């Protein structure tokens, strides 16, 4: 989870294609080594598709940039079509694709049940929602196959995107039915019972109140920020206590925290921290701005090395 949080966070902060590619490569490596999922043609196609679509979209609809590739003497649709617009779209696609790979790796390594168990008892409903959400994609895939199969059995040869319209509704319904089924199972097994006691609920409200007071204090007296910070800190502490102490959940097979886990958590959170600091202090290091005229993205060996550390779970076995 620490790795997914860090890699996902960095993928959101970074726009430089070199580092985004490094994040994607780390995700693929971890998926391969830890979950036994070799990189496949399907995965490559998905990755390419996620890059091509925004590239085309931006190329067609953005008019910014100085390197004109195409221009037609037609109003509105005549261009100019620029290299910069294409590059901007491509980096946006790369960012999305990298984020998707991180999430795919995360869902491959962490089952919905594991996620459910790791979420604090006070957040039981959120845990159920997250678990159902994680189940949704694989279930949607199964539903998609089932509907496609049913169409063939009834004499229909799939013809690509044109068929999607007829599939979307049953797909959504089947997937929601499946999610409801999981929800029924969780409820009848006692998940979420008395997740937050009345006392806990009162404490949580006090915490929320302190948060609000902190915000008000900040807006009224920004020069005395320490008062606002203290109020927010106190509120956050109370909420944390409520979330971690409420409910009475336990583990049959508690996991043993190993040194490798500490190493992975430390390193990945460290990389995230570094990225946050760089965004604040030297934003150009992680960014890529092709406008107004396309340039090669910058490359810094120290930054690349730091981002490469996200591949650590591929070589150091840890928990999920």
């Amino acid at each position: 989870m620490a790795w997914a949080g860090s890699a996902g966070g960095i993928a959101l902060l970074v726009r430089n294609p070199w580092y985004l590619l490094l994040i994607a490569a780390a995700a693929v490596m971890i998926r391969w080594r830890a979950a036994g999922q070799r990189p496949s043609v399907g995965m490559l196609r998905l990755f390419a598709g996620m890059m091509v679509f925004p590239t085309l979209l931006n190329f067609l609809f953005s008019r910014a940039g100085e390197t004109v590739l195409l221009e037609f003497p037609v109003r509105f649709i005549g261009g100019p079509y620029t290299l910069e617009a294409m590059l901007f779209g491509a980096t946006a696609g790369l960012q999305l694709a990298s984020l998707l790979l991180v999430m795919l790796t995360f869902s491959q390594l962490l089952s919905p049940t594991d996620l459910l168990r790791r979420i604090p008892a006070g957040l039981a409903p959120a845990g159920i929602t997250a678990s159902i959400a994680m189940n949704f994609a694989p279930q949607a895939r199964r539903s998609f196959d089932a509907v496609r199969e049913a169409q063939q059995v009834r004499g229909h040869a799939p013809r690509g995107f044109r068929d999607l319209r007829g599939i979307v509704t049953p797909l959504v319904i089947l997937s929601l039915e499946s999610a409801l089924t999981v929800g029924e199972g969780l409820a009848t097994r006692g998940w979420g019972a008395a997740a937050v006691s009345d006392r806990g609920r009162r404490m949580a409200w006090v915490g929320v109140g302190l948060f609000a007071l902190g915000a008000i204090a900040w807006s009224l007296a920004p020069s005395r920020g320490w008062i606002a910070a203290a109020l927010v800190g106190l509120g956050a502490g109370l909420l944390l206590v409520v979330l971690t102490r409420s409910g009475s959940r336990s583990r049959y097979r508690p996991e043993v925290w190993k040194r490798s886990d500490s190493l992975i958590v430390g390193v990945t959170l460290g990389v995230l921290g570094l990225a946050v600091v760089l965004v604040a202090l030297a934003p150009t290091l992680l960014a890529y701005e092709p406008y107004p005229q396309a340039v090669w993205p910058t490359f810094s060996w120290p930054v690349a090395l730091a981002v490469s550390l996200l591949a650590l779970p591929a070589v150091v076995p840890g928990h999920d």
Partner: protein
Amino acid sequence: MIEIDRLTYTYPRADRPALSGITLRVREGDTVLVTGRSGSGKSTLLGAINGLVPHFYGGRFSGRVVVGDRDTRANRAHDLAGIVGTAFQEPATRFITRQVTDELAFGLEAAGLSGAEIGRRVRATIERLQLGPLIDRPLDQLSGGEQQRVAVAAALAREPRVLVLDEPTSQLDTQSAQGVLDWLRDLCHQDGLTTLISEHRLGRLLPEVDRVAALGRRGELEAWGAPQEVIPSLAYGPPLIEAARRLGLPSALSEDTLAHLRNRLLAWPPRPRQPSGAEPRLACRGIGFAFPAGFELRDIGFDVRWGEAVAVLGGNGSGKTTLLRCLMGLLTHRGQISIDGTAFHDRSVVGRAQAMAYVPQWPSAFLFADTVRDEVLTTLQYHGLEPGGMHDPEAMLQAFSLMPVADRYPRDLSAGERQRTALAAVMIAAPKVVLLDEPTLGMDSKSQAQLARRIRTWKQAGLSVVVATHDVEFAAAVAERAIVLQDGRLAAEGATAEILFEHPGLRTALQRFAGRSWPACVQDLTTDAGGDDADD
């Protein structure tokens, strides 16, 4: 233990109540069978006891349900989980974890028991329920019967006082179903559990239950009492009662009536000779398919003649569904398939659909149009056929008694109606061969009788039918011949009644009762099976 007082419940956006004015009281330690037609509200009633109704689904709820000392209006399903254990049909879709022991421990973790206590209870459950061989096995690699046992064990691990079982044997073959029911009976007797079971297979369960709650079509309590009082009044009873009715005997089965029934069955004329010599319509040779996980269907060969039905029998995991999926081309198989002498094994699914119709186990994914009528029209459109003549949608809806629901959303229908919709959606293309995979799953007795009658009509029209089923009563009612699969191999082939009788685990209720192969089912006692198609 359970008190239900004037319970009326309507699902959100439903125009009529699913349960209507139910009042009953279940004593501690009683085993109650909840029965009724498909869509009569059996699962809803069980949901009202475990708290899913109304908290999980919403809707309008009036009246009162008290379990132990807890009013379900003030207690949600997760609050009641400590006293009510629930096992659903299709347990595989509701497993939360991936391993048997984790699944048993899940509810205990939710209850916040200490690790040591969870371990003690998990071990005790495994020992008491004899689940030792299943420990640490992945849940998705268990057979249907094993999965059902794990689901019940997981419900029992929290040591509830009430056990709610929604069709616990619907997916199981005869032997597995009997095993689960025997096991449940012992548990209930040992632990004094109050148990409510919704089930269609009445025959095997009746001796074990103390009370029967029969729900009517509008969700009302049609009958409530001891089995001997309630069962004879049901429109469709278990096979022995139906047989007694067919032979003009009282449906309350006293010792005298049973003796009389046995004598009549023993004196029944032998099975008429089956006409032979009809040309094979569907010919299968050397059908095989290997799954990466290891299971393999090997070298299956059989013929289905014009106007004939062949039952594919075998335990859970024997390869019945795999065989049908191979025939339809949904799996890339070995071997040859021909219809009327024309090779079909080299055709795609769509190519085979020109002559074959296939309806899978659960037709839910099969139905994707907005209305029942659209389902039928969609198939015509897919096949490029014009409505009319033998492809007349209105006539097809009429033939399958679907006119009253023609404009309804298919997935909102009862199990029987959905099955009929799926059948109409494939039969509109006028196929030559029909492949049905477990067509009676979730169907009540009356719907099963209607389907059996429909299959006989198709056969008279010259269609060939292959039915994969674990329902031996249904197989006996519709199929002239049967093949038995065992571990992916063809283990036996022959006339259905003889095949069933030769395999003690497959014998029908009449065969077990009379100790002879013929008559094998109620339909053998008369040439006209009767039945009413219009009221599902």
